[in-house]
């Protein structure tokens, strides 16, 4: 039988971003997949040569429009640990709240895209309508819907008043209750179960072997979550990572749906535990130039993100490297795509929640 090579992407109806994959087919079965990244490579890591470390945080935020808050946070946390800056307590709690809200936002966005990919236009619209409410919260509290720029090295730029925090919590809990109806459709609809159930199974052993991260690994039964290491005040929160065992496309959907509830609960705990009052300190400004290096790990909506920052005592960093969760999940994706039917490729690719902007930086 002849082998056929089919280019999947950069333009494809299910792809929100230009992933490029050369699929090598035997009949309808995929036998190999060769990724090419670089279609939207912007060389942001290279910009440390020109952009001073104080401004680089705003560049880092622009790595990706969905996890922009956590990219900014990761950069600031890295510089803070190099420069030995203590973040004021309220600022650290605010970061945690924003981070969890952005996780809800990202999961809703992805669920919508996933629904669109398997042909449920209506679910797509419901998910994105709810996501819009989260973006409104961001706009109200940070001034920006997508790019927030509230993180500074040493703290955060803006406060959220206590009454506003309570209102946000009520809004999130209302959204969580309303989401239950959407989640019921995802969980019980027979056509969704037919399209996603049993498709693209990543076993626990394979998930370990390909070093999968985030919801991808948790859907395969691995209890892995960078929040468990307790950095950035997560040690003061009681939570258990959402783990599913089936490892198929449906399990990856279910993990993300359950994480929305988990994140709302984390926000509730954070608002409960944070110091209350007006005019609390939000920022400890660092002095001088950074010198040293650090690896920082955070749990982004898509999984573990890793930053390596090396500073040499000048205004410009020597090296900034972001290893984003999608980059870590590409080997898993290639593993899943091999051996599947061509018609299942779009769903498998989407369920890793690929963020190509993040991957290509």
């Amino acid at each position, binding site marked *: 039988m002849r082998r056929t090579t089919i280019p999947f992407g950069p333009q494809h109806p299910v792809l929100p971003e230009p992933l490029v994959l050369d699929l090598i087919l035997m009949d309808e079965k995929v036998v190999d997949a*060769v*990724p*090419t*990244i*670089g*279609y939207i*490579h912007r*060389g942001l890591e*290279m910009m440390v*040569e*020109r952009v*001073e470390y104080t401004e680089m945080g705003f560049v880092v935020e622009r790595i990706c429009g969905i996890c922009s808050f956590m990219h900014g946070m990761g950069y600031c946390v890295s510089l803070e640990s190099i420069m030995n800056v203590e973040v004021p307590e309220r600022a650290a709690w605010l970061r945690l709240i924003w981070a969890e809200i952005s996780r809800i936002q990202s999961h809703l966005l992805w669920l919508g895209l996933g629904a669109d990919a398997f042909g449920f236009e209506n679910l797509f619209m419901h998910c994105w309508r709810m996501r819009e409410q989260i973006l409104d919260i961001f706009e109200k509290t940070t001034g920006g819907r997508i790019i927030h720029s509230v993180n500074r090295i040493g703290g955060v730029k803006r406060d959220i008043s206590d009454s506003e925090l309570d209102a946000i919590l009520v809004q999130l809990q209302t959204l969580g209750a309303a989401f239950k109806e959407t989640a019921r459709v995802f969980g019980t609809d027979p056509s969704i179960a037919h399209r996603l159930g049993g498709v693209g199974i990543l076993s626990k052993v394979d998930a*370990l*072997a*390909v*070093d999968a991260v985030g919801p991808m690994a948790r859907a395969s039964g691995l209890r892995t979550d960078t929040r*468990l*290491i*307790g950095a950035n005040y997560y040690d003061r929160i009681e939570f258990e990572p959402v783990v599913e065992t089936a490892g198929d496309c449906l399990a990856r959907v279910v993990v993300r749906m359950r994480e929305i509830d988990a994140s709302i609960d984390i926000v509730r705990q954070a608002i409960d535990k944070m110091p209350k009052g007006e005019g609390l300190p939000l920022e400890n400004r660092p002095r001088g130039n950074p010198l040293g290096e650090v*690896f920082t*790990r955070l749990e982004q909506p898509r999984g*573990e993100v*890793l930053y*390596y920052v*090396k500073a*040499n*005592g*000048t*205004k*410009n960093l*020597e*090296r900034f*490297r972001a*290893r984003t969760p999608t*980059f*870590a999940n*590409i*080997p*898993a994706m290639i*593993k899943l795509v091999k051996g599947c039917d061509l018609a299942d490729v779009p769903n498998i690719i989407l369920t890793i929640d690929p963020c190509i902007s993040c991957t290509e930086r």
Partner: protein
Amino acid sequence: MDATAFLARVEDYHKDGWRLALINVTTVMPVVAAHGAAAAAPTAVPAVPAAPAPAVPAESAEAATPPTPAEAPGVFEIAWAFAKDGKFETIREQIVAGDAVPSVSEFFGAAFLYENEIRELFGINVVGIVVDLKGQLYQTATKVPFSHAAIKARLAAVAAAAVKPS
């Protein structure tokens, strides 16, 4: 670097159930005293004094003067980072540009992506990658954007742009 000893350490991490979190490369460049100011001055100090200096041939007439950073072959710092639960460890190596680096992809399947990346972006000669993408992973305007020569050219361009207005 000692490839056998290095691979033995990597194998230990693999057997203990660690996850490969990142392979990071830093192009070690000479530190210029102040950003923008006198950037073009050739009085640069080598950033890493421990850089393995190439053996200077004894018969060379210039043997008395140590090679300036511009002439010495560039140095790369490579870190293999491993994660297991809350723990995080790295193996660090310094290599001279052109040196061969053994692939760890036989132990950690996901390593092929990092290794193809550092080969294309840094020009590091990684040998034995299980999935060899043959330079197809990135399509960049500069062929090897993080090589010493490419970074030097960009820094010089930044410095030249900084002095232009005066």
